[in-house]
């Protein structure tokens, strides 16, 4: 194929009465020159748009490479926000730990004494909601899990809370905790704290081939107390 102009070719011929195998012979020939030109332009435009879109999606999903680095800004401009995608469910490795998130609240009483509630197991509530449900709700399966994942990831690169996004995710996580604690603690509270206990999932009974570290003691992480205003409740 030495003619690379593609769809322009049909215009160079006149007098044809229609396509070779279309449902309606002569469809093309019934079009006047300007309409033929417009259709040809549309073909060129649509085909290139489809090919470019697929190429950009591929480059976005593929590991960073010389091409995707060079065209980073163009790829991002096209993909974000509507074509963003992430196909990493349980990959590269599924999560191999349990993360159990609890919250407790505190109230400063009129006499100045701070009263702290017991720990409320938020994860257990989600787990119980998923149990024996053929269609678990996003509120149980995704909300707290993804909020913590996103916040933890943001903290990993932004421990000093300099980025606005980290603060937004913190507010989100706090709101989830406040909403759920409010259903358990019936008095208003001034502050809330989260605790994340990470326990490794036990290895399969057969000796695993990989050199994964043996199950270690659970890691406990306390987040700072976050203030709660009456508007939040």
């Amino acid at each position, binding site marked *: *194929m030495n*003619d690379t102009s593609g*769809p322009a*070719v*049909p215009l160079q011929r006149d007098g*044809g009465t229609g*396509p*070779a*195998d*279309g449902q*309606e*012979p002569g*469809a093309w*020939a019934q*079009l006047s020159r300007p309409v033929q030109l417009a*259709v040809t332009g*549309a*073909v060129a435009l649509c*085909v290139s748009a*489809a090919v470019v*879109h*697929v190429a950009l999606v*591929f480059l976005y*999903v593929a590991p960073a490479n010389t091409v995707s680095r060079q065209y980073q800004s163009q790829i991002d401009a096209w993909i974000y*926000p*509507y*074509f963003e995608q*992430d*196909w990493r*469910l349980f*990959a*590269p*490795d*599924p*999560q191999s730990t349990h993360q159990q998130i609890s919250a407790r609240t505190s109230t400063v009483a009129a006499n100045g004494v701070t009263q702290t509630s017991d720990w409320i197991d938020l994860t257990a509530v*989600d*787990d119980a909601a*998923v*149990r024996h449900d053929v*269609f678990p709700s*996003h*509120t*149980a*399966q*995704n909300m707290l899990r*993804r*909020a913590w994942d996103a916040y933890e990831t943001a903290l990993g690169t932004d421990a000093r809370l300099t980025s*606005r*996004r980290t603060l*937004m*995710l913190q507010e989100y996580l706090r*709101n989830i905790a406040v909403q759920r604690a409010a259903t358990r603690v019936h008095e208003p509270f001034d502050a809330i704290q989260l605790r994340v206990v990470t326990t490794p*999932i036990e*290895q*399969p009974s*057969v000796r*695993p*081939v*990989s050199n*994964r570290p043996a199950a270690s003691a659970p890691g406990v992480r306390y987040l700072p107390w976050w203030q709660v205003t009456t508007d939040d409740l």
Partner: protein
Amino acid sequence: MTSDQAVTGARPTTVGLPGPAIGAGGRPDPVTKAFTFLTEHAVSLYAASLLRIGYGLLYLVFLLREFPNRDEIWGPGSPWTPALARELFGQTGWFSILTLSDSTWYFELCYFFALVTAALFALGWRTRLTSVLFALVVASFHGRSIYMSDGGDNLIELMAIYLMVTDCGRRWSLDARRRPRRSAPTAQRQLVIARRMLSTLLHNCGMFVIAAQVCVLYGAAGLYKVQGGLWRDGTALHYVLNLDLFQPWPALSAQVDSHLVFSAVAAYLTVLVQVAFPFAVFSRLKYVVLCLLLTMHLGIAVLLGLPMFSGAMIIADAAFLSDSLITRAVAAARRRWPR
């Protein structure tokens, strides 16, 4: 090509064959053939309609399932507050009808609108219009709850956008029942032809993008897993089956988990099928791979409690069913169960 042309050119039927461009041998050149194919031969019309019905119904079921939690996920009372959502949209450029007002009544109206749109889209009523509305609804709801979504929501959002350009209302739809009664006056013939060519062209490009998107999805999912040690040593399923949030039937999960050989084989097969997918769809192997994926996704739906995610994937796989296969299957079903 020259010898081929010489042979076919000698055939009386092809000599005078009309066409936009006829080669010296009386046969359209490859570019013309591709051009004609793109503008006059709509591929996979049944598959496109399956996708429309599938995603429309899936989203309808999703909205009904989350009806009791609608305010918590998308409403003014969500922990991801309207203010936070608006701020994020300001950073990312997303648009959602849901953040236009914080009023509860407005939200309830949007929810009702979403339910009706999903139902009409599944039915194929004025599909050109409802497909745009469906994409608007799905993008609005997905963006509003972006930090509560998973791969299934993501895929439905992409497919809703792609389906806008396809002719997904040509088969099995209310439009298809109405269409035969319409006939255009001859004066507008040119416009009618041009319009049909353009819609066929858009449809074909849309179906190509959908197919490519699914290939990218499986290829990426498979290749990411190849990099993981747990998928390599065959223990990945053990960890997946022990995540509490993906364990609606703990006894069933424990049962599957106890079969170490089965778990290892299933883990390897998952990776293999996903990596092979983009190559297998061009061969007869396609149907074997699609059957394996169907089994895998049904397993995920039940075992891991991810029916929405699995449903979205199964519907996406339907994009690879050819029209001839679907019509043959329908004919066989009609013969078996006559009305």
